[in-house]
């Protein structure tokens, strides 16, 4: 197993410093334990242990092959991988929306057996309830929990404000743009105060300008709310702008191929994508992904 530590600290205009710690995993099927270079395991919120997912019977397609990872409390962890690598499937498993063939997923030490409000999720497709107003959508989770009306109102007002949609509280989803819908979806998931927020390419369907705005908004919200996030994307810029740590997945069957720590100081601005250190990290991930795509064809 090779451990490459690249300390690319060049003074930049913003004075930011990127430290890239990358661990390339061996292909040893016996598999080593987690190779996270930092020791955050004390505050682990979510642990995915040796998860394998095979569709159909024993001869079916192997979607995920012995995936293990941990997400620390309040960490922003991003998974990037080629399309069809099973990264979304992994998130569905974490949410409890599907069952793994083997392995186990724990949130705060409890094993995931079915979906629950402790694992909020934002989907790539628009999943706001079209029959509810923006306000009622955000209120949905707290209502299921049985919180009193006054407390619900406070929560909704807070998150409406957080995503900047207070003026649209009484609109129906059909009256909102794609970006606004995803902002409501984020607010709706957060209003439930989940232990982990799972995000499955939430900005994948948006145009690139809106995506940038949404990343900025998500960064701001996350920095204020301090949430544990597991975010899936195929967009490397997005992964590096948002994440504390980026996990690179192989093509199907999906495995964690590399783990890259993104030490860009926070609060981050969208300008980091122009800095040399950022570009160095991006080049590295692109290289890792290209290997996968080439192997695939």
């Amino acid at each position, binding site marked *: 197993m090779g451990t490459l530590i690249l300390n690319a600290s060049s003074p930049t205009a913003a004075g930011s410093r990127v430290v890239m710690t990358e661990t390339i995993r061996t292909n040893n099927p016996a598999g080593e334990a987690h190779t996270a270079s930092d020791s955050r395991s004390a505050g682990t919120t979510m642990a995915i242990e040796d998860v394998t997912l095979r569709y159909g019977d024993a001869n079916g397609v192997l979607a995920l092959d012995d995936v293990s990872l941990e997400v620390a409390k309040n960490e922003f962890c991003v998974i990037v991988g080629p399309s069809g690598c099973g990264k979304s499937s992994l998130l*569905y498993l974490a*949410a*409890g*929306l599907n069952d793994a063939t083997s392995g186990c997923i724990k949130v705060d030490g409890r094993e995931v057996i*079915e*979906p*629950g*409000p402790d*694992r*909020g*999720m934002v*989907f790539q*497709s628009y*999943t706001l*309830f*079209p*029959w509810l107003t923006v306000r009622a959508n955000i209120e*949905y*989770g707290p209502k*299921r*929990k049985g919180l009193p009306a006054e407390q619900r109102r406070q929560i909704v007002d807070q998150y409406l404000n957080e995503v900047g949609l207070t003026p649209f509280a009484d609109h*129906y*989803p*059909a009256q909102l743009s794609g970006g606004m819908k995803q902002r409501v*979806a984020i607010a*709706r*998931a957060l209003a*439930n105060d*989940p232990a982990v927020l*799972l995000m499955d390419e939430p900005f994948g369907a948006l145009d690139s300008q809106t995506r940038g705005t949404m990343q900025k908004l998500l960064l701001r919200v996350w920095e204020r709310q301090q949430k544990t996030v597991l975010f899936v994307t195929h967009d490397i810029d997005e992964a590096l702008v948002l994440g504390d740590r980026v996990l690179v997945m192989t093509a199907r069957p999906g495995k964690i191929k590399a783990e890259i720590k993104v030490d860009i100081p926070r609060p981050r601005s969208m300008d980091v994508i122009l800095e040399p250190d950022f570009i160095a990290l991006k080049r590295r991930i692109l290289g890792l992904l290209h290997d996968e795509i080439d192997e695939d064809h």
Partner: protein
Amino acid sequence: MAQRRTAWTRLTTPFANIPASTATTLALAMWIAVIGGWALLSYGRVVPNMFLPTPGTVLETTYRMSLDGSLFYHTLTSAKVVILGFIVSSLIAVPLGLWMGTYRAVQAPLEPLVNFIRYLPVTSFVPLFILWIGIGIEQRIAVIFFGTFFQQLVMISDCARSVSRDLVNASYTLGTKRSEAVWHVIFPAALPAILDTLRVTMGWAWTYLVVAELVAASSGLGYISLKAMRGFQVDVIFMAIAAIGLLGLITDTAFRILRARVAPWAP
């Protein structure tokens, strides 16, 4: 920007919008053409009046039967049959269809049976209904029910089945329990489609009216048509047909208004 397209280009462009005034004019022209053609054929004696009454005679008959209250009476009887049959059918078909679309375990036993029954002509059951239920209003309601229910069931189950999986998944991640999903997510999500289904099947219910009143009825629009046929009163048949069409139009509009009220969020 200047309007460079001619009116003719706009009228002949696929899917292009036309001005509301043009649409209204075209609709009116259609009615005038139909009634005008009718007037021409009847007043011009192209078709003998015994088979095709003049618009004037039909209006006269309508006026006469409105005055003595018989038109209202027969219309009311028919509306009662159709609406009762439709309501009973809908009350069962909506929840059962929702279940069928939601749970495979409900769909698996019901679907083959329902698909078998719904292709059977309603008329073939009339003798059976008479034998079983007799010749009262219940028999007529049963005919409407039988013609509507199985179609509704299949269509409503499709409405439920086409609800987005991710919508249900999202609700789970927000704390909805499996048993709550039908009521909290699938029903409201499918509601606009269900109301559309009800509107369409209401139209079908009206079309079964004459079949329902074919046998042993003593009042209703279908009944007076059949009686009129025996007496060669073509004008009465025309009036009854127009009344059924008009009632259909009214219930259709009522459903459109209801849908806009109940599901204002749906396009």
